[in-house]
């Protein structure tokens, strides 16, 4: 009889431990009439109470007041990188405990890098009117023409909604340009390289090509590849979208167009070698997309421009408020990436590249999780979540919260949404239709593994550890293996295209 309590205690302890280990963190469902939407905030914006999220908080409060029984629980999103965000999401999804509305980047979603079935196809909702826009016939029609292709997956589904754009350009120190006797901003890539030479001759370190992160390297790849392959893109652009996706690129590699044996493609990397020769050393310590307050590498390169250590930085529209707050207001100018013409290389086509690098931004990129990834999700809850998203994506609302969140450095993706008119910003925005954007390796198109390996190769090439011939061999090997891997993973027969 004495043993009984001992065994009961053991059983209790064991069952408690098992229960503790097996319990997931599933979101609360809506079966009781009340719905709690678990939503991820834009990355690195702190909690919903943070100043960066004041616009979202305000809109959420208004929505909850108008929709009794619906509560939105915003979750902070402290993400160091896209890859980390993906890993976190996949980890949560594998346990069925992902949030309902998750932050994601369009690249991994539309390219298929993120596992299929993790996010829901929200196209049926977007094809209907946005209920908060009077007279609207289709929610999709509110988005700018260049935005929809960014949201569309290979199979035509829309698994992600995009709220804001950023644009990129060359930010230069007016003092440095004056010292080098440069009176006008360059209009061609050849002029740009010549200006970098003038800066160097004047004793100014011309540029910091920051390759500690993906921004500058992937921007260059996108810029030069889109430009130099503009005449050949139709041969592998089987998806016919604004931006080439994994399938397009794999087909291009299979056909030998995206190949180091294609002089046009090889020229992309020769031009990078030319640009990198003007770069300050220590490129891997910096990332063009790092927070200016970051103290852990890769650091922001903005302080180099502010301190007069370099003449030019390749940055984005978000630099404008950041440089201004660093006291550099009025001391810098910005110009869009100049086109690569035949003055730079006989293979140059002079294609305008304005707006090719910019595009959807992290602020306002969301996907709705599937029931497999989020056990609390069902049809009714999906409808509630999308209704809340429709509220956020009413043009007036979208413009307001993005303006508050990003001090106006981001440009809303919907027409009619109010935006701040910051000096210099307008020159970075494309005035007409943007040509087909060719992403290859460095933007998570084929796979994250390929992107990581590609960045390492680019760093070694820029550092001078790899001469062009070795870089070329290894890059080609990466292209071939990544395309094969893509075809295997996605069950695609590349020979059929």
């Amino acid at each position, binding site marked *: 009889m004495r043993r009984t309590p001992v065994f009961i205690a053991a059983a209790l302890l064991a069952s408690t431990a098992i229960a503790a280990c097996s319990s997931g963190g599933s979101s609360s469902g809506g079966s009781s009439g009340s719905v709690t939407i678990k939503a991820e905030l834009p990355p690195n914006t702190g909690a919903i109470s943070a100043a960066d999220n004041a616009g979202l908080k305000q809109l959420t409060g208004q929505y909850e007041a108008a929709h009794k029984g619906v509560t939105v629980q915003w979750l902070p999103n402290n993400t160091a990188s896209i890859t980390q965000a993906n*890993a976190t999401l996949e980890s949560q*999804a594998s346990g069925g405990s992902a949030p309902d509305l998750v932050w994601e980047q369009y690249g991994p979603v539309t390219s298929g*890098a993120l596992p299929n079935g993790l996010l829901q196809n929200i196209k049926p909702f977007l094809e209907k009117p946005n209920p908060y826009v009077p007279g609207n016939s289709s929610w999709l029609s509110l988005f700018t023409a260049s935005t929809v292709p960014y949201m569309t997956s290979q199979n035509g589904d829309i698994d992600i909604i995009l709220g804001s754009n950023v644009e990129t350009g060359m930010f230069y120190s007016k003092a440095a340009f004056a010292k080098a006797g440069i009176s006008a901003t360059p209009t061609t890539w050849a002029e740009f390289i010549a200006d970098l030479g003038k800066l160097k001759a004047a004793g100014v370190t011309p540029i910091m090509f920051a390759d500690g992160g993906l921004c500058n390297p992937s921007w260059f790849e996108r810029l030069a590849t889109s430009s130099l392959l503009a005449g050949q893109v139709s041969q592998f652009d089987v998806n016919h979208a604004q931006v080439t996706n994994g399938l397009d690129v794999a087909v291009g590699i299979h056909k030998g167009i995206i190949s180091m044996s294609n002089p046009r493609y090889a020229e992309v990397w020769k031009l990078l070698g030319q640009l990198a020769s003007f770069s300050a*050393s220590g490129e891997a310590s910096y990332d063009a997309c790092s927070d200016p307050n970051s103290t*852990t590498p890769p650091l922001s390169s903005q*302080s180099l421009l502010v301190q007069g250590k370099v003449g030019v930085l390749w940055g984005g529209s978000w630099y404008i408020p950041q440089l201004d707050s660093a006291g550099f207001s009025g001391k810098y100018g910005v110009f869009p990436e100049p086109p690569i013409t035949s003055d730079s290389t006989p293979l140059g086509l002079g294609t305008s590249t304005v707006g090719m690098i910019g595009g959807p931004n992290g602020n306002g990129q969301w996907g709705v999780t599937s029931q497999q990834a989020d056990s609390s999700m069902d049809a009714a809850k999906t409808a509630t979540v999308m209704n809340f998203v429709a509220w956020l994506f009413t043009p007036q609302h979208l413009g307001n919260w993005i303006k508050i969140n990003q001090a106006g450095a981001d440009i809303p993706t919907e027409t009619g949404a109010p935006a701040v008119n910051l000096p210099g910003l307008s020159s970075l925005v494309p005035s007409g239709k943007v040509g087909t954007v060719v992403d290859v390796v460095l933007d998570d198109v084929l796979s994250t593994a390929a992107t990581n390996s590609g960045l*390492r190769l680019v760093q070694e090439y820029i550092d001078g550890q790899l001469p062009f011939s070795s870089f070329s061999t290894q890059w080609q090997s990466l292209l071939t293996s990544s395309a094969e891997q893509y075809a295997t993973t996605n069950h695609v027969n590349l020979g059929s295209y």
Partner: protein
Amino acid sequence: MTMTYVQSLRRRWRPRYRLRAVLVVLLLPSLLLIGIFSYYPAVRSLIGGFYQWNGFSPPVYDGIEQFKQYVQAPNFSTEVKNIAILTGGAILITLVSQFTAAEIVMHMPPRAASVAKYILVLPIVLPPLVLIEVWAYLFQPGSGLLDKVFGSVGLAQPTWLSDPHLALVSILLIGFPWISNLGFLIFLGGLQNLPKDVLDAGRLDGLSAVRRVFAIDIPLLLPQFRIVVILSGIYAVQNFVPILLLTNGGPGTATLVPGLDMYQSAFSNDQYGYGMAIGTLLFVVMLVFTLVAMRLLRSRTA
């Protein structure tokens, strides 16, 4: 009422039996949790190396292909070279700095030794991330303390973490002077327990301090050296956090090590099976390293 032999036996054994039962019950939660959180993941990892798995879709059996893939990968030789340098360097600087510090403290006046001991041991409580953050500041190009010092004496300012020839050395520099660690305490404890008669004999023989270290201290502290070598070796192989935070394996592959490759394969590239294969290989290598170290540094004394 006479107690039979069996009753007597029961009475004698019952308390011990009850104690064991209580011990088992008390241990059960710990065993259960260790099983779930330590042994299960380890075993799962060993098995996982044989499967292709992206963390979401069902795993696909792949035999030893992922092990072969890693060994044949272009970066494999670089990773082996880097980890060999880091591990060898870490063991060397650990042994030299911590043993030297322990010797110095051991032969200081008692009060000074006590103070020095606390000062040297206290930084152990510093979270590693804080230490890395401090070194991130020290290494900052141009504005970091090291570059400022170099600049102030007219020397070129290196880009510590982004120069491919310096990056690995910079990683080794983290934690300088490398004293505040467990090894220091192990050596100090060993020195404090050296047999007095042997030390007295050495003193009578007129051994100098340096001769004493090599003739008495080191030979008698071989068990401690063995523990420190094994612990610091395993730590160097496993600890890719400074690399992850400061260089991410770069520039290029200048600081890429198997641990980081394992982490990135699994958590960045969604190649969980491949990551587990690397982890399994690392486990085997560390096991061999441990056995070799135990064999080479076995005590020669009875």
